[in-house]
């Protein structure tokens, strides 16, 4: 029951943030210098065409009315039409979101599989050889541009070894998974150093906590201390770390989707900017904002489920 109250309070806190995001997304079109309709259509467009677009976008109405219309439409998931593809944006975004979601989930999985054991090793063997090696690798991975890593992986696994396709998406489930593997590894390698550093710091902090010393003084074995007492605390921290870095993760996905020509939201965003397809840019800014808020909400909620201190 207190959990529901917590969720309710947290949801209430999210509403002003969501409003700010809608204002920001709405403003994009108006911050463009000059007449937005003119900019969208390019300098060769006729005055009539510009006027039609102005009316279509409602640019001739007062700003507040425009914003409220925008808000109402957004709640119905109606973002208008893409200027470039000339179809409704909602379905385009929905179709592409599936691929982005699959890619990001795959990447998080890879990242956790690498980061958690290495962070554990690094924290227990602190300042010893294993720790130095893990930290050196972390720094190396941190400095690698994600798109460059992606190209190196293509060079090795697609061109030389021919294990995976170089771009696009496969049709059968297995081919689909295969075509997402290199992109997911690229994003995973991009995210791993961030997760690993935070997790290592959190593990070291927990290992130095007095309850660990008390457990040792009580004669508990190191394995029990590590896997029961320390890990339970650090997994809670892990969740927070993931929540904080959702934005980072999405950024990695946007870049890497472009390398592999994956029809996801990231490649749509870049294409929309290149094509000056402002309605799409506005819709995506809003979508990404909502995704981040929702992710943080979910993280807080599961955090409350796991950590008894937050609940009451």
């Amino acid at each position, binding site marked *: 029951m207190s959990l529901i109250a917590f969720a309710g309070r947290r949801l209430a806190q999210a509403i002003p943030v969501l409003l700010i995001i809608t204002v920001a997304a709405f403003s994009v079109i108006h911050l463009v210098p000059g007449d937005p309709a003119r900019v969208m259509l390019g300098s060769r467009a006729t005055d009539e065409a510009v006027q039609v677009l102005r009316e279509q976008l409602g640019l001739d109405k007062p700003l507040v009315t425009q914003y409220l219309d925008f808000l109402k439409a957004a709640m119905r998931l109606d973002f208008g039409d893409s200027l470039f593809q000339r179809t409704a944006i909602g379905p385009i975004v929905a179709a592409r979101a599936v691929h982005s979601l699959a890619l990001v989930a795959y990447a998080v999985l890879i990242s956790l599989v690498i980061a958690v054991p290495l962070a554990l090793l690094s924290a227990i063997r602190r300042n010893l050889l294993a720790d130095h090696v893990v930290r050196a690798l972390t720094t190396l991975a941190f400095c690698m541009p994600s798109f*460059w890593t992606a190209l190196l992986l293509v060079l090795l696994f697609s061109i030389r070894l021919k294990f995976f396709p170089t771009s696009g998406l496969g049709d059968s489930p297995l081919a689909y998974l295969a075509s997402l593997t290199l992109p997911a590894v690229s994003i995973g390698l991009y995210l791993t150093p961030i997760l690993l550093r935070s997790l290592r710091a959190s593990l070291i902090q927990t290992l130095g906590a007095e309850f660990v010393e008390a457990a040792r003084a009580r004669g508990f074995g190191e394995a029990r201390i590590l896997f029961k007492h320390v890990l339970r605390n650090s997994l809670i921290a892990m969740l927070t770390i993931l929540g904080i870095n959702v934005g980072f993760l999405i950024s990695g996905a*946007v870049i890497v989707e472009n390398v592999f020509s994956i029809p996801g939201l990231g490649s749509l*965003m870049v294409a929309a900017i290149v094509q000056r397809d402002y309605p799409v840019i506005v819709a995506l800014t809003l979508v990404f904002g909502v995704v981040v808020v929702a992710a943080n909400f979910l993280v807080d909620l599961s955090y409350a489920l796991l950590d008894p201190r937050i609940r009451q």
Partner: protein
Amino acid sequence: MRPFPPGIEEDAWLRLTKRARLDRRWATISLYAGIAIVAFIAGLSAAAPFLGLKDPTATDLMNALQPPSLAFPFGTDDLGRDIFARVVYAGRVDLVFGIVVTYVSLVIGLSIGAISGYFGGLIDTVIMRIVDLVISFPFIILILTIAAIVGPGLTGAYIGVIAVSWALYARLTRGEMLAIRRREFILNAETLGYSAPRVVFVHALPNLLRANLVFSMSDIVLNILTLAALSYLGLGVAPPTPEWGEMIAQGQKNLFNAWWISTLPGLVIVLAGIGFSLIGDGLADRLDESGR
């Protein structure tokens, strides 16, 4: 050498002192190795016009797609441009971008964070809400959106990245400010009747700089990577101006037959990144007053 303490087992004590020295030595090595790497790349880029390098933008189709050799240390691209010369000239764009963006963000973020932490209350709440939003939002989306408003190019990149990265410094500084807010030297300055801005900027600031300086080293790396990514996406530095990310993008279409075009500029980014990271690690140890 200090006399050997009596009643101590010699090998145990030596093991301990060696352990202590080793940790310190790593931090020192890290700092100087980092400075050496950064100085090497920065020096080369700064001196580029005087090194007798080939013209970084001159095309030479006779020598297109040459693999690395003595004449072309990093090979040539599909237009026959010398990749080594381009990499060195690109350093001027990338390093300047990384450093300028980082320290402009630092100054903005530090000021805002210090104000937020010092005054607290409503100002603090509002500022921190904005900071949280900027930090949790995917930075590339924000920067792309700003690029969409300003228009693609280096100016958009400068504005976009600064608009995002000040927030991290603001949060860091606010935390530090809260920690020292109640320490004696601040209370002392207040009791002496100094004005609020004087207290914030003269008395507290040197103490706030420490954490910010350490973080700024990783931030330089992040910002260089961001510029490279923007250029790779075609929204940063426009060709033919050499820029590391743009060079990697140029090489992608020839990945099958000329691996060096994309690979080598990427290695230079990694090297520069490692240099700054090493400086950061060394600085963290030097500036850490709390011991361990």
